């Protein structure tokens, strides 16, 4: 076509170049949320296939993959032996570069958790890195139940009683614990 020929004559001499750079730049342009979704799907698969004892997690029923509910079981030989705890995960759009917000839903009496369920754990804050995931967070929290960091408590009373008065600790802990269905 004449028009086409005309057109090609009038293009810049570096048009080849332009074509190349567009090709180079537009190829894998992922939306942020898209890669978050992909990553969370991978994590879900991994969680369902591995059988780590005492932990589980699943996206909420609302179809939003950015909100999950997790469960951990208190490890044997700790105050929390046999109790189950529910947690909520909410993932930011720039996950996994930034950590999810994790809260205890089940009321828990623990030196590093406050009465609103907020948790003080380094890997959920400044030590978060992109290779942590839901599973490693759940495992860390599970071990936190048995080994609190009493040096930086959110619940000062619990930190004090932990070693000093196991009986009182257990009493207060059980008094606070409620299975989520009863709440």
């Amino acid at each position, binding site marked *: 076509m004449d028009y086409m020929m005309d057109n090609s004559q009038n293009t810049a001499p570096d048009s080849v170049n332009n074509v*190349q750079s567009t090709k180079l730049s537009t190829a894998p342009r992922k939306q942020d949320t898209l890669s978050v979704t992909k990553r969370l799907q991978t994590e879900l698969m991994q969680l369902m296939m591995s059988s780590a004892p005492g932990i589980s997690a699943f996206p909420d029923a609302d179809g939003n993959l950015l909100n999950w509910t997790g469960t951990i079981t208190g490890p044997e030989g700790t105050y929390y032996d046999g109790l189950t705890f529910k947690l909520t995960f909410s993932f930011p759009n720039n996950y996994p570069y930034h950590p999810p917000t994790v809260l205890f839903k089940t009321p828990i009496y623990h030196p590093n958790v406050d009465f609103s369920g907020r948790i*003080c754990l380094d*890997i959920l804050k400044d030590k978060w890195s992109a290779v942590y995931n839901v599973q490693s967070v759940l495992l860390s929290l599970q071990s936190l139940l048995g080994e609190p960091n009493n*040096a930086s408590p959110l619940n000062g009373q619990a930190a004090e009683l932990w070693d000093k008065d196991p009986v009182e600790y257990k009493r207060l802990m059980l008094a606070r614990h409620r299975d989520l269905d009863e709440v």
Partner: protein
Amino acid sequence: MSGQRQGFRPPGTVFASSSTLPLAAASRPGVGHPPFSATGVFTSTAPQRHLNFRMPPLQTQTAEALATLQKLSNEYEPEIEGPLVGKRQSSQAITAEYQNADEIFVRKTAVLPQKYSHYRTVKGDGNCGWRAIAFSYFETLHRIGDKGRILEELTRLKSLNNLLNQAGFAEHLYEDFVQETLNLLSEIAYSLPTSSDDAGLLKAFNDPGISSAIITHFRLLTSAWMKTHVEAYQPFLLEDTVEQYCASQIEPYQVEIEHIGMNALIDALILPAGLAVEILYLDRSVGVEVNSHKFERMDASGAPLNPDAPTFRLLYRPGHYDILYKIEDVAALMSSPTNLQVAYATPVTYGTFQPVPVVPVSSDMSTYLEIPGMSTPFVPVTPSAMSPDTYTSPVSPALSTFSTTTLPLRPVGDIGGFRPSKYELEAEFHPSPMPNLPFQTPTFRNSHFNPAHFRNSDFQPEMWKPDTADSGRGHKDDSSRH
């Protein structure tokens, strides 16, 4: 994947807010935090965003409210302007930036552009050192322009997954990051040799998804390298083990690279690629020039194994890295024929003609015709083929309908920009700058842009004298009063 808790955050919680803040700040160098007073109440300099939060009276503040504030504070990040990786620009800008600074900086930045003609800014978001290295790695490979070499790198980086596995990273967690690096490498490889500019690379690196993934990949590589070469790095760590250091300083996103991390990254990624890095340190140390340190492969005696290894350069100012270029590097980056033409054309069009296209064609062309020599530079096409009489300009068919007297000044195509044509200048053609443009129009002769009056021996600039000005006004006032 290590499921173990890595130790705890030092004291600091919603109940002890004053101690939390500095820690959060320390973990993100370059990121400031709103000032807090001892009670946890924002001082008046708190940023706008926080002022929207209605502050209840101090006594009634619940733990909830404090927690909300704490959360806002933890998540606060100042808006940092600019692209993740900027365009290459003249390093005169650095000199200008420091012109009012300390004398040492002034001296050092004044001589910087002589050796390092260009630089590129990298966003200071806590990843700048990582980003600067990563970008330069890709750009240098692109500059070398050897497809085979890039594909070799691709293979090498793929095989480095073994290193990641060895360090205990789970493949399903790192594969997405690695994939972005491999994608970009293969795109560069297959864009050669036609793609000669940095537009594609710049665009990829300004895409947060791609950029973050590549940086994370390189962080993990560095961590894995350090963990598998403990003996080389442990002596530099005073308190931490290599494992702890990687967990707190290398792996977390937005933690700035330190010297030891830089070393490990260069050892793992740059040197095995046959590249070398030179870091220029701009600081207040004594000297007339920036200090430099070159990282390159050396034999046992400390002599460089390959002194001619392609080298890229970073400018380090305490807490921040940018990318520097030597003149010859920039020349190499712009050496393709298409760019050569642009290099000539830009000064020609902008130096002499910029005002021309903006003038509407219908306006008084005769003004321009009065300017002798105005037409000469405008026919830069094959000067040999051009004689004044048979001036059937080959510029374009449209223009050839103009006679010599109507001057082909009409803008064709884009107004204001450089309009590329299929004609190129001959290699030897150098337009002499302003050959004979005396600009002797009446308008110009009388304007203050005409410097001719300086040549007049009797020239005396008009001077403002405060006395006369004052007395004059006073006199005037007096007279008006009378």
